[in-house]
């Protein structure tokens, strides 16, 4: 049976596509070396629109108004710029109510986009641009360590990582955060209260890498301006040993916390990338997204019992196996890192690699 792979790897070639949500201009060049905070593409989007009924304002037919409209789609207009002028001695004028861009004209109307904001797409990782995607973004290749998470709050940032975890089930509380951590990415554990998230914002951290978060804190976590990545999920869940080992041994390094929302269909998922120099002896291996369950493969348990624990498949069970719940499913025997051996449904396992 094919198995999805959850990446927790110490050294690999990481290829990521970065795309604007709407068409825009790509600023990056092919083969350009980029840093995480480099803007590689940008676009502008109007926060709102104005529909100006020129025909009505001038008291003319839509066709006549179309002849009087002076602007065209794409024009940028300053506030009070003249859009159309009627005829006669006391001709009425239609002015742009606000600064903006003309989206469309016709039928005696002008549609303007106003309150435009610039969307900047950052590289998100240190690497090389290996492909440009016209009007949308680029593909970047990096070399380093990678730890994927299961939930992110949609932000991205980079900073030196400080380890505040003594063990995989450490709890991060507000008291442990102080001004010395300003601009740092914090490797925390379980967060149980809102004060911790607020304290991290006050300290101005560049990111939180947590094992888990209480579900009641999700609305607040989504509001935080810094990225938050959860490696395990929700409730009091310790960090899996592979992620804990990888992240804690890379403390003090510069890391990118890309807490992008998980999208099962596109495959985007929150992750922590630690750039590393290319080793002269070893070319970085490419990441494999699909594996086949087999003895010897390292897996993580997704559901109870032993949820979050890492182990190795020792045998694949033939046919269907009955579980204490009464359900029957294809299964594997897994030797967990604590020495215990359990039988788990294959569908509840993911390959670590």
């Amino acid at each position: 049976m094919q198995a999805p792979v959850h990446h927790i790897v110490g050294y690999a070639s990481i290829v990521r596509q970065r795309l604007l949500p709407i068409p825009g201009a790509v600023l990056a060049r092919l083969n350009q070396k980029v840093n995480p905070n480099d803007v590689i593409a940008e676009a502008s989007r109007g926060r709102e629109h104005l529909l100006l009924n020129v025909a009505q304002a001038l008291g003319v037919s839509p066709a006549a108004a179309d002849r009087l409209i002076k602007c065209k789609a794409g024009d940028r207009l300053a506030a009070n710029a003249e859009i159309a002028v009627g005829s006669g001695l006391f001709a009425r004028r239609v002015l742009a109510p606000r600064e903006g861009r003309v989206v469309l004209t016709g039928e005696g109307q002008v549609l303007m986009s106003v309150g435009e904001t610039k969307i900047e797409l950052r590289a998100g990782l240190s690497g090389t641009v290996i492909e440009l995607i016209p009007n949308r973004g680029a593909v970047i290749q990096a070399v380093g360590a990678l730890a994927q998470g299961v939930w992110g709050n949609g932000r991205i940032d980079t900073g030196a990582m400080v380890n505040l975890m003594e063990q995989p089930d450490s709890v991060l509380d507000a008291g442990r955060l102080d001004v010395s951590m300003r601009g740092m990415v914090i490797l925390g554990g379980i967060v149980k209260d809102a004060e911790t998230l607020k304290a991290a914002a006050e300290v101005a951290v560049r990111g939180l890498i947590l094992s888990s978060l209480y579900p009641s804190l999700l609305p607040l976590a989504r509001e935080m301006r810094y990225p938050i990545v959860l490696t395990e999920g929700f409730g009091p869940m310790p960090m899996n040993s592979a992620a804990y080992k990888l992240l804690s041994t890379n403390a003090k390094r510069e890391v990118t916390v890309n807490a992008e929302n998980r999208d099962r269909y596109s495959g985007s998922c929150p992750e922590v990338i630690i750039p590393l120099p290319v080793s002269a002896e070893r070319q970085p291996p490419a990441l494999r997204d699909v594996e086949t369950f087999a003895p010897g493969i390292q897996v993580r348990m997704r559901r109870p019992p032993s949820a979050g624990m890492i182990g190795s498949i020792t045998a694949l069970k033939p046919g269907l196996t009955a579980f204490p719940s009464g359900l029957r499913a294809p299964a594997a025997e897994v030797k967990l890192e604590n020495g215990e051996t359990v039988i788990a449904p294959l569908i509840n396992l993911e390959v670590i690699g």
Partner: protein
Amino acid sequence: MATSLIDGNSVLAVDVGAANTRAVLFDVVEGEYRFVASGSAPSTAQAPFKDVSEGVRNAIAHLQDILGRSLLDNSRDLILPSQADGSGVDGLAVTLSAGPTIKAALVGLLAEVSLESGRRLVESTYARIVETIGLNDRRKTEQQIDALLRAQPDLIVITGGTDGGAARSIQKLLEPIGLASFIMPAEKMPAILFAGNAKLAEEVKSLLGGFASLLHISPNVRPSLETEDIEPASRELARMVVEVRKRQMQGVDTLQAWSGGHTFPTAYAAGRMVRFLSKVYSADKGILSVDLGTSAAIIAAGFKHTSTLNVYPQFGLGENLPALLNYASLEEILRWSPLDISEGALRDYLYQKSLYPASIAATQEDLALSQAVARQALYLAMQFAQRDFPRQARRIKPSLLPLFEPILAGGGALSDASRPGHGLLLLLDALQPAGVTTVILDQNNLLPLLGAAAEQNNILPIQVLESGAFLSAGTVIAPVVSASFGVPILRAVLTYENGTEARADLKYGTIETLPLSSGETGRLKLQLLHGADVGFGAGRFPKGGIQVTGGALGLVFDGRGRPLELPSDPVRRRELIKKWLWTLGGG
């Protein structure tokens, strides 16, 4: 030996679910169509696979292993038609429920007329209404444009106006749709379905045709003020949903090509089958089908002159699970659990399970949680769907579920019920049927596949349905009565075909069973006490009794009252739930 009335074409039916893909073979055995075997594999709509056809190939490969017969060629393409060496199949039908919930904007005139019909239309598929624009909308056109841009609908459904009626109000509503669609990036342009005043169809085409990824025109859902006719628009919407899925997921086009266009949303295919059954079999009761899966809860009901189909992605047991808390408290969900589980553990479960929708319960506690959640989700879906049931449908009390015969139940949640007793109690708790009804568990989830296969072969569904491919859980007798716990409410005598008798006394608040195997029939006589009503009037039952059919659990007498009220004391409640489960052999 029966004479075959059919030309013997084998039909492969494939269901692509959010979690699992199943391939089912129907073929002619001794002159009649039968369900032959089923193979399954995890669905591959999502990353890293991102191609639904991969999961379909895997499921077919599993099926061919079971059959010992080749269905795929060396390039893993389906062998169509069947070959002289026995390989391949003659036809393929596909149902599809995988894919993200479709975001729909609803545009219409009056809230209680065309917008209400539009709501019913949108609810007939895997969509969630994210924006509504109506005649009484006080927002300016530009605000409506911005609202549409923020909502980014995949689909816009326009209703409104009676055929031949006024057109200006609808014309005005087309403006924000056209302008918003114009502004959207090409790949995000919505699909548009116009199901309003037929007179406007050409105008809609010329105004919106250039700004829609797909524009379909269907007959008006409200041809006149008094008439609502959702079905033709629902059929059109089903076609559009497949097209939308083609844009969203790779591999759907391959399935479309293999099936010769016989690809349908799963819910639509199930609804179609229920509609068909209600026309063929329905007497004075309705036919109900419920399906609780990862992507949605689906309620399809057929009555004598009408049918309803409601799809609720918000009650699906997959990635939408945390949204259940918008409709129910943790306490309300936990009332169904036979185990003492904390609210915190349930909340963590809902969020964690949403990360891994395809995962299954391996422990007893995990199963208790998943079954409690499934009960609440199905209960809510049923409450919502009941709004659309016809008022004139027969009921014992106006506030209760109409009388149904039979109730068909399928979907992942019921497959997850490890024993038929678990599945049946889940249904009794969530649906709370009243009166006498047969409950059929569609353990292979065949109903939608039969609905899809019916497009190619209309004999197949009837023959498969009558072949015993579905598991009858039994006949349920659920009296409506007002009594105190422990008071006798019903005395039953079941006479078997061989003349022997079995008796049961039912007390209020309990469940009792009498054995009656699948395929067996018996004559049931009831003495109803305290004005108990099982659909024949208070305290009344036909003198000569009624014929009942057996099932995995025989006859099940549910004396817990309607509506079901669970004890408020949690310890007593859990004990009772365990007892009920034990009675139904699911303990």
